[in-house]
């Protein structure tokens, strides 16, 4: 069990005024069986009216618009999270199992991923008899061998098949590929956005259903989701739980900066910082 403090901050500077903008922010962790969230505050500059809502994946979000001209936009979400140890289990409904069994958007497989799964089956004839957790473990270990972590080789719109063909990518790509392979082998799996101890950016991992429960896997780190992970939201792929989305009129050139920090709060203990993992 770890007690963590998190900060998620995004700033955009525009070269000319934005005359109107609208935004959706899905960066609000909520309580579940593994984590308890407290002391959440959301600051926005310029101050902007926000409506609260929950989407079809159960993600809480705020949305709104601003018609007062501005050349700077910032939001800062911070709070504390008490996260459970080890792998976690959360109940999955039969409906959820259906929804997340089918690849969609960025997780749709192509020939290369089908071929890859075929090879796993050939080299491991017992693969199909494995439980979903067994399959997830095998796929994660394989990806750790065959897919390389490297920033800049893929973008936010890169799908699983394309990333896999490139052979390298970031946490989003690891997760998409793993979901795609799990769906191909008949398992229900979903994409999770979150934060992890250290300073850097947001993180992403995978949840898979086994015997009616969701289990978390972090393929980027080849590990189970543990008490260093703060879960934010989920979707069938990254676009469905994108942390922020916006449209603006005007603004010219823009520069965007994201600052994320998660540190451990336990008194008397050193703050664990593993730096940017992504």
């Amino acid at each position, binding site marked *: 069990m770890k007690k963590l403090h998190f900060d998620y901050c995004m700033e955009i500077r525009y070269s000319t005024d934005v005359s109107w903008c609208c935004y*959706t922010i899905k960066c609000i962790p909520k309580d579940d069986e593994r984590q308890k969230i407290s002391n959440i505050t959301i600051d926005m500059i310029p101050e902007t009216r926000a409506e609260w*809502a929950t*989407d*079809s*994946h159960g993600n809480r979000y705020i*949305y709104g618009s601003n018609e007062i001209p501005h050349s700077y936009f910032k939001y800062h979400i911070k709070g504390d999270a008490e996260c459970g140890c080890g792998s976690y289990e959360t109940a999955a409904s039969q409906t959820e199992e*259906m929804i997340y*069994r089918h690849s969609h958007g960025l997780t749709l497989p192509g020939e290369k991923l089908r071929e890859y799964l075929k090879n796993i089956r050939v080299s491991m004839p017992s693969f199909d008899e494995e439980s979903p957790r067994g399959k997830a473990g095998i796929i994660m270990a394989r990806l750790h061998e065959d897919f390389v972590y490297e920033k800049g080789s893929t973008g936010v719109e890169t799908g699983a098949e394309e990333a896999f063909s490139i052979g390298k990518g970031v946490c989003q790509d690891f997760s998409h590929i793993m979901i795609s392979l799990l769906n191909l082998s008949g398992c229900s799996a979903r994409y999770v956005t979150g934060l992890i101890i250290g300073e850097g950016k947001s993180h992403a991992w995978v949840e898979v259903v086994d015997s009616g429960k969701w289990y978390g896997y972090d393929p980027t780190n080849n590990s189970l989701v543990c008490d260093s992970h703060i879960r934010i939201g989920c979707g069938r792929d990254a676009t469905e739980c994108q942390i922020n989305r916006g*449209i603006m009129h005007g603004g010219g050139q823009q520069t965007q900066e994201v600052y994320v920090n998660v540190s451990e709060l336990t008194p008397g203990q050193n703050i664990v910082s593993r730096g940017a993992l992504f």
Partner: protein
Amino acid sequence: MNNVNLLKHTDDVNALLARYGVKFGIYKNNEFKEQLFPFDAIPRIIEHDEFSFLERGLKQRVTALNLFLKDIYSDKKIVKDGVVPEDFIFASSGYMVECEGVCPTKGIYSHISGIDLVKGKDGGWYILEDNLRVPSGASYPMIARELCRRSSPGTFNGVRLEDNRNYAKLLRRTMDNVNVGGHTVILTPGRYNAAYFEHSYLAEQTGAHLANGSELIVENDKLYFITADGKHERVGAVYRRISDEYLDPMNFNPQSVIGIPHIYDVFRKGNVALINAPGNGVADDKGIYYFVPKMISYYLGEEPILHNAPTYLPFYEEDMKYVLENFDKLVLKDVAEAGGYGVVFGNSMTKEQKESFMSLLKAEPRRFIAQEVIDFQDLDILEGGEMVPRKADLRAFVLMADEPLVWRSGLTRFSRNPDSFIVNSSQGGGFKDTWVLSQ
């Protein structure tokens, strides 16, 4: 029935239709062309009793389809009970995960349904397709009737005919039934849309505001219409003639410039009605069509009154076997395509085409359905002063207000090509008025 008088006025009516801008826009080779939608003055006539039978069947079908949509986006009982396989829902391009757990006002999903039927040579009617997204076409027989009455009033003397000019009233009742408080708006993508004439005509006839995306704005969880003098007035219902993906760039396709940012967030909270509800594509997919008779039994405990054309799903092994063995007498349809595209007749393919199609079919069985070719009745049309028979279908309009309502008319479309079974207006067909006799 004596139509001679009306036939003499074919040219007048077409000239009037042109003057009123009754046009159909199509994109061909990336170019937008507006063309007239050719009108044939010989009406299709349906006897009172025959239409009453259709009416009962159509109400039953659309009621079941609405229950299906409600079920799919909530409990999914029909899938859990094994009536519809999971693949046909969640792998369908019409399924929208964003609609999960969101219940539209009064639980109505398909307020306006366009159901395409044909009459076989055996005298029976068959359902060809359900259109539950943004079916168009009602305005054409509406205005054609009006213009025919104007150019040839004598034709209608003593004919006991259902007046089809009441469509606007039915539509208004349907929109008012779900309006949550405020204006009713018809949302159009603008004049470059194929059905722009219809959008403006229906707005005029129902008294709704015609608006494009830039005239509507979301504020404080509600939708507002921006009036000419800049006031923001609350909107309670939007009959949107924009497809789901372009409706809201913040929730769906981010590239859309014709939608309204956050309108879906407002809908999700029940603060505006969207007509039709988003997500309906999962129920009018050609693959789901096969299951509609089963839905009727499942939800209503009734026998289907109207029948589908005999359909096979290569997804099922025995159907695949039948399709491969009877390839030449079947028509194959790609479930993802619409508007008469993606339809091929088994007997029209060369040996090589057949082989490559069959291997595609085996590789992606979920993607296709196969149907027996229905030998449907020809209707006479006037061409160069002569009567010639052509294939025709009927798009019936079923509106779901406080109760299901069937419009006693419909759009009869015909193929101008004597060898073609495809009647879609986007493929260059024409239309007729549909006369339903009142007794």
